[in-house]
């Protein structure tokens, strides 16, 4: 059999190119290093470490994945990074000490929780304009906007409340009391339920969005780990609506919850003080940031197994995955 070398070479390079095009990268904010680590998800290696503002924590991608928004908490700003050049192109007025934020489906309204000021600031990312500042409870932290764009939710760590904000009027319209120190919230894909973690309470509250009442509380128990260490922080809900993944902080585990029965079905061991998580595009992988051990653990979602831990900077906090 004869092989046409130029055609074979062209095919090979095309295959190589397409595999590169499919590759994904993760961006991780390192709270104590003032950097962002870039991880290639084909090789599981850190390919770049980028300097950013002071104490970077929450990070999110713009909907077209060309920009990365970074809460530079101690610089009191939200930085915008162009992902093509890895350069900071803009600083948004975020209010003091921005920690977590959420991008409205309209792609330019950023909802930012200002931990020190008990405020939620809404910023227009196009005009740099502060659209509103809404008073919420003490130490606001978790922030989420529903996928239909109608509701924004904030949690306040000290008031122990979930605050409901109407995005049209930009005003608070209700509060729900949850367990101690609520840290993170996420809407279910159909926007019917809101999942909220309570770090000190050690629970995850599932709240009915229509009535804003708690319909279930999930608790955690791991053999060999003291119950005080069960401190849920980050949540990720799978797109198929079947599972919820909860980062259990100093318990060093991720809990997998059946999103219908609310039963914990498995625990996966990851690094120390696991904080936040991100899925890759097809949700075959879940990545966790492990603050104290300074690494990111990659979990095979189908097998429910941790497959690799990758060293990043000091105290990795937020994480997002971008298709290359």
């Amino acid at each position, binding site marked *: 059999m004869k092989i046409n070398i130029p055609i074979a070479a062209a095919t090979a390079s095309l295959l190589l190119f397409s595999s590169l095009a499919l590759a994904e990268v993760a961006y991780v904010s390192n709270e104590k290093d003032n950097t962002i680590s870039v991880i290639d998800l084909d090789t599981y290696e850190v390919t770049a470490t980028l300097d950013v503002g002071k104490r970077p924590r929450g990070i999110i991608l713009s909907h077209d994945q060309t920009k990365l928004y970074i809460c530079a908490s101690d610089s009191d700003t939200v930085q915008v990074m162009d992902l093509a050049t890895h350069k900071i192109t803009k600083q948004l007025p975020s209010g003091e000490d921005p920690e977590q934020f959420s991008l409205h489906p309209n792609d330019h309204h950023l909802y930012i929780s200002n931990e020190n000021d008990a405020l939620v600031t809404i910023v227009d990312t196009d005009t740099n304009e502060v659209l509103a500042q809404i008073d919420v409870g003490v130490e606001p932290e978790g922030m989420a906007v529903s996928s239909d764009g109608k509701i924004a939710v904030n949690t306040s760590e000290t008031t122990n409340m979930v605050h409901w904000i109407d995005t049209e009027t930009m005003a608070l319209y209700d509060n729900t009391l949850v367990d101690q120190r609520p840290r993170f919230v996420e809407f279910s894909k159909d926007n019917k339920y809101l999942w909220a973690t309570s770090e000190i309470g050690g629970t995850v509250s599932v709240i009915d969005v229509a009535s804003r009442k708690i319909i279930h509380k999930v608790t955690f128990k791991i053999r060999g780990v003291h119950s005080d260490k069960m401190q849920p922080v980050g949540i990720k809900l799978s797109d198929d609506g079947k599972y919820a993944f909860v980062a259990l902080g100093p318990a060093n585990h991720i809990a997998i919850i059946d999103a219908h029965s609310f039963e914990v079905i498995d625990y996966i061991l990851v690094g120390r003080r696991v904080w936040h998580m991100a899925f890759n595009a097809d949700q075959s992988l879940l990545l966790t940031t492990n603050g104290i051990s300074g690494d990111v653990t990659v979990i095979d979602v189908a097998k429910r197994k941790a*497959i690799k831990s990758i060293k990043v900077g000091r105290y990795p906090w937020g994480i997002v995955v971008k298709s290359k």
Partner: protein
Amino acid sequence: MKMTPAHYWYCFQGILIREYLRFIQQRTRFFSALVRPLLWLVVFAAGFRAALGIAIIEPYETYITYEVYIAPGLCCMILLFNGMQSSLSMVYDREMGSMRVLLMSPLPRWFLLVCKLISIALVSLLQVYAFLLIALLVDVEPPLWGYLAVLPALLLVAVMLGAIGLFISSWIKQLENFAGVMNFVIFPMFFLSSALYPLWKMQESSEWIYWICTANPFTYAVELVRHALYLKFDGTACSVTLATALIFSVFAIKGFNPQRAAGGGKPG
């Protein structure tokens, strides 16, 4: 009569089949050999389940539970007990039973002993694989190819431990009972190695213990098995295990004198 390779092969087959038959007929021995490591895995390791989730240790790619850490050491524990037990019985059998018959063979004694060590090793492997299968129940799940890659490592370790056992029972008169071997050989070898705790943990507690562990060939045997099971190769562990196996085999064969046990006379 001149011995041909066919004779050698026939002899090896004979010894292997006999070990295999003995293994099948003594099923209680098989299960009792499995109970010991399983107790360690299920009872002892359960208490420390979360103890190791604080550091990534070669060859693992991520954080592991204590069960996962301890499993290769327990595989080697099976080989250690089997190697010592079988070698001791070989020495006792010098004066009677099958060993006496075997030693009447016209083939060289070193060959017979090496065949015997390899046969014991091969039979021990069945127990190790049975253990690894049961270990799946407590989430000890090495990669599939790891089960194949670990085979030569296990074989080498089994031969090394068999040779050490044969050497000890041939040369050290005072240890000619299993209790002695257990207290003075098996336990120190097992505990002062990386089987139960990684060496950096040992170093944290005592520099002396750490040095003893690094001088213990069992540490290298465990690391060889651990790396192979997770599809990695530890060159140092392999070299040390191989060298130890060779050195002890030579001395064990030299020391194995059938007349010594029979009449207590001088080797002739």
